[in-house]
Structure formats: structure tokens, C-alpha cells
């Protein structure tokens, strides 16, 4: 297999506060390859968005990357200076945020947004930048793109604005796009269009996508592989079809069992008892053990590592794991 576009190893993010140290991410490792959509699921606070922000070095102070490494095309980017990151952001890694209503500068036209970004990264002249802006808008499905360049963000619908945001993320043809809950703020019907757009861009340009969501259904439709996050750790990672059909980690099993289905006629939806631990009080051993039916003494004392055959890897002592880390 070719070298991954993005490779993250043992990433650790800490938020020192006045009273204690919050561990936002702990030992997060994954690869994303060209043309692949890697989904990140987990409940709020599991560390999905922090992972995206850490890659972009956009973690709000006092949060900081405390360990591990991030490589883009083999080059480390987690230690880059501010100006070094300015050359990576937008040019090599694009980003799409959750709320398209607030992601655009209300006082600037769409055309200015696009030509500004194109100008910064590609150094094109006015005409060429404008032509590229028109073709980008066309590609993401904005009707009459040449006329709409002069429109302001408030003159577009939410779905159209998210398309524009995606066009902005794609201005310089980055190898990777991090989409942080790109459809959460949108109507369900519009969600499907945005998902289809992401999938299409991924297939035609070979852009890798890191798709952050809490919607397992969306992952199942869009992603090639999925990483399940829990309390700042990746607990299971593998091909979507594998994980949906044979979830190995008890948490993933709970997540998938909690998806409402039309076929089964259940009175109540399944739920996972308890709540995710606070980031200031991560339990010893396996982070999931307080909520896990299978937990034993080993789970309470020793931390499981991601292991398994081939692509599908799980951090669990009890299921589908033949060997333990020493």
C-alpha cells in the first residue's frame, strides 16, 4: 500500500486548568490514505474534534499537543511554527466546520472569499483566480456561479453555504480535508446532498477526507474506514463494513445496537448505561471498564492497546484479541 497522506502516532493533547490536568487525547494513532474517507465517531467530548484541531494546530490555549507525532506525506507538521502552518493549512489540509452560517465573513462577498484564498495559495492573477472560483462553485453545485460571486453569505441557504465552505476548503486542492460535523447544522435532505458531494469529490480528486460525526448512519454510508473514539482514545478502527457487521469492542457494539432500525420492532432503543468519564478523571486500565459488562480485574488495571488481525483493530482485553501488549 502507498504511504499514507496523514499519519498520526500516539497523539496526546492536554488542557492544563487551574485545578487539574484534562487529557483530551491519549495515544491516538491512525493513518489516512489518498482518496479514502476515514470516519470518526463517538459521543460529545470523546475527542473527535480535538483530533481535527490538533492536526491543524488550532487547539485553543491553554490546550497543547503534549506528545506523539503527526506526519503529512511523511513530513512532521506537529512542531511547525505559525508561518509554517500557514503554508500547510488550506494548501495541503483543508477544513470544513460544523456551522456554515457562521463560517463565512458576513461583510465579504463569496467571490472575495474564494479569490482571496486562491490568491494566497496559488498566487493566481485576478482573472485566473476568478475563473477558478467560478469552476469551484460549479463543481460543488452552486447554480449560476459567475453571478453568485457578488452575493454575500446571508443571501445563500444553509446547504448552499456549506457547499461554498467546501469549495473554500478545496481552493488549493489539498490532499486532505478535515470535515468536522459538516452536516450537523443542516436539514436531513440537505445532509444527504452534502454527503454525496463529499463522496464524489473524494472519488474524482483523490482527496482524503477525515469525516468527524456522531452519526453512525452517515459513517456507514460515506466512509471507507471508521475510528471509534471514547474518552480521548481510539477504541476500535477498521473497515466500515467489518465494524458494522462485527463490532468487536463492547462500546462499538453498544453504539451499533443503539441505532434505531425499521426491521426490529423494539419497544425501547438500546442504550449504554452510565456516562463517559470526565477528562479530569480518566479511570485506570481500560477507559470503558466502568460501563462494561465484561470488565474483569485485568480491564481495571491494565490499559489495552489497539490490536487485531489485518485492518480491524480493537483496544479490548476481552473480545477478539489474542495477544496482549507486554
Amino acid at each position, binding site marked *: 500500500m502507498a504511504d499514507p497522506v496523514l499519519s498520526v502516532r500516539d497523539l496526546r493533547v492536554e488542557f492544563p486548568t487551574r485545578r487539574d490536568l484534562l487529557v483530551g487525547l491519549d495515544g491516538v494513532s491512525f493513518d489516512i490514505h489518498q482518496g479514502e474517507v476515514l470516519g470518526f465517531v463517538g459521543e460529545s467530548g470523546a475527542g473527535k474534534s480535538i483530533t481535527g484541531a490538533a492536526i491543524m494546530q488550532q487547539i485553543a490555549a491553554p490546550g497543547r499537543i503534549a506528545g506523539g507525532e503527526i506526519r503529512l506525506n511523511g513530513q512532521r507538521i506537529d512542531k511547525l511554527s505559525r508561518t509554517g502552518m500557514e503554508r500547510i493549512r488550506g494548501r495541503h489540509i483543508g477544513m470544513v466546520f460544523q456551522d456554515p452560517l457562521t463560517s463565512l465573513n458576513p461583510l465579504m462577498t463569496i467571490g472575495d472569499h474564494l479569490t482571496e*484564498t486562491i490568491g494566497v495559495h496559488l498566487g493566481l492573477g485576478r482573472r485566473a483566480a476568478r475563473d477558478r472560483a467560478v469552476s469551484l462553485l460549479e463543481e460543488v453545485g452552486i447554480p449560476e456561479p459567475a453571478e453568485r460571486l457578488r452575493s454575500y453569505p*446571508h*443571501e445563500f441557504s444553509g446547504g448552499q453555504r456549506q457547499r461554498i465552505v467546501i469549495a473554500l476548503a478545496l481552493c488549493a486542492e489539498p490532499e486532505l480535508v478535515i470535515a468536522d460535523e459538516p452536516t450537523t447544522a443542516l436539514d436531513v435532505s440537505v445532509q444527504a446532498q452534502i454527503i454525496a458531494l463529499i463522496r464524489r469529490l473524494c472519488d474524482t480528486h483523490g482527496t482524503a477526507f477525515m469525516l468527524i460525526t456522531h452519526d453512525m448512519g452517515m459513517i456507514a454510508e460515506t466512509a471507507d474506514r471508521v475510528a471509534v473514539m471514547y474518552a480521548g482514545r481510539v477504541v476500535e478502527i477498521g473497515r466500515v463494513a467489518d465494524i458494522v457487521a462485527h463490532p468487536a469492542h463492547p462500546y462499538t457494539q453498544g453504539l451499533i445496537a443503539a441505532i434505531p432500525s425499521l426491521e426490529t420492532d423494539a419497544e425501547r432503543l438500546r442504550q449504554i448505561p452510565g456516562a463517559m468519564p470526565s477528562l479530569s478523571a480518566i479511570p485506570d486500565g481500560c477507559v470503558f471498564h466502568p460501563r462494561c459488562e465484561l470488565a474483569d480485574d485485568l480491564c481495571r488495571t491494565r490499559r489495552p492497546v489497539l490490536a487485531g488481525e489485518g485492518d480491524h483493530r480493537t483496544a479490548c482485553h476481552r473480545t477478539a484479541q489474542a495477544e496482549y501488549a507486554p
Partner: protein
Amino acid sequence: MIALVVRRLLQSLVVMLVVTLIAFIMFRYAGDPVNQMVGVETTEAERQALRESLGLDQPTLVQFVRYVGRVASLNFGVSFQFRRPVMELLAERLPATLELALVAAMLSLVSGILLGVYCALNPRGRISAALQAVSLVGVSLPTFLIGILLIYVFSVALGWLPSFGRSGLVPVTKHWSTGLLTLQGWKSLLLPAVTLGLFQMTLIMRLVRSEMLEVLRADFIRFGVARGLPQRRIYFRHALKNTLVPVITVVGLQLGSIIAFSIITETVFQWPGMGLLFLQSVQNVDVPIMSTYLLLIAFMFVMINMVVDLLYNAVDPRLKGSSRV
């Protein structure tokens, strides 16, 4: 846009009419103007004749309509104490006040915005903390005290700048002599302008700082960073413009109050402007000057408000109707 201007003009007209009514009531009830104008030996018949010649025996409504007519033709009557047309007196004093107010406004606007932006971009810096503390003093100290302190330091102790008056004047037109063309003129202008502008400067600085900190937390700033835009561009193109939209309103109103409340500064520095004239006329119950001053200040506020509204519309595309949706 034209419809908006017309609507605003009509609204302004209504406001001015109401202010004219107040000025008129001042005339009616701040003592008997005939008594102010005549001597002690004037007979009752002569007083009656004067009253009739001034139209004071007419019904109140007729008098008001006449008054509005006079105001509209810029005839504001004759000052009791100077026995000269009010219009002439104010025209003499207007340049002094306008120059003082404009210099004070520019000073406070430029330095207020610069310092506010600096504090917003370096929120944890020591200089920012010091500026914040000093600005608290600027907001809370009364103007006359600042003026006296400045006179003490720069005129009495250091002897660098004159302590009162307007000098170094160069005539530009018949009615307008400016102090802005000579070093001497600037020297005498500096202390009053700083005194008058200090409060506004600290206010603008604090406003710009908090607005900009707010804008810097906005999603579109984060998205700008994520698009790889250079920091300078994000700060000064994206953040600053969004910061200044709400600042425009406050600055407009502050400009009005700089002109209106230059009274105190003009008194402290014996600056020969309209404020000083107004204060003299209050002491002498010179109603024509007082009511004309009232009308003039109201007119300025109305005009500034209108300009602010139009500026707002020009800057913020969200207010421009929905013509292109």
C-alpha cells in the same frame, strides 16, 4: 438607498420640529422678554407697543408658527446681552468649537482604535493590562479635573504649552479664522483637544478591544485560519472590519457629544467657542442664544445620526434589503 435617505430626512424634520417647540417654550417661559429689553423708565404704553411690534400679543399657536418660520429662514433673533443677531455671534464662535471638536474627535478615534486593536491582539500582554488600567482612570475622571491637571503639568510646571485661549489664527474666509495652520495655533489647541478627547478615546479603546476580542472568537476567523490565510490578513481585513461596524454608531454619537459638551473644556481653557458663549448666556438669561444653541446641537445630532445610519448601510451588506436573493 434614496428611499432610505428620504425617510431619514423626514424623520429628522419631525425631530427638529419638536426641538423647535422646546426652544419656543423656553422663549415663552424663561421670563418676559420685554422686561429683558427695556429700561426701568419705560412706560406701560411703550411696553405694550413693543410687545405688539414683537408679535407677543398674538395667540401662542400663531407665535409658534411664526417662530418656526423664523428658524427655517435662519433668523434666530437678537441677543439680549450683546444686542447683535444671534446668527452672527454663533458664526463667529463656530470655527473655534468645530476645530476643537474635530481635532479632539480625530485624536480619540485614531488612538482609540489603534490602542483597542493592540489590546485585543495582545490580550495577556503587560502593556495591554496597563492601558486597561489607565483607561479606567480616563473614563472615571471628570473632564474639568483632567483639564486642570494638564494645565498644571504642561503649562505651569513644564511651561511648554499655553494654559488658555486660542492663538496663531490665520483668516481663511470672512467668518473663518483657523488655528490649524500655525504651530502656535496647534500649541494652544493641543491641551483642550486632549482634555476633550480623552474620555472618548478611552471609551473607543475599550469598545474596540471588547468587540474585536468577540470577533476573534467567531467561527469565520477560525475558518480563515484553517484556510491558511496569513495572520495579518485575518486580523486587519477580516476581524477589524467586523469590529468597526458596531463601533461606527458609538463613535458617531460620541462626535455629537464632543461638540455638545465642549462647554466644560471651553470654560476651563477659556476657549472662545460656542460652549463658552452658551455659558455666558445662561448666566445672563440670554434666551435667544440658549434656544439657538439648543437648536444647533439638536441639528448636529440629527445629522450625525443620519450619516451613521447611511454608513451602517454602506458597510453591512445584510442591511441592504434583499434585492439579490
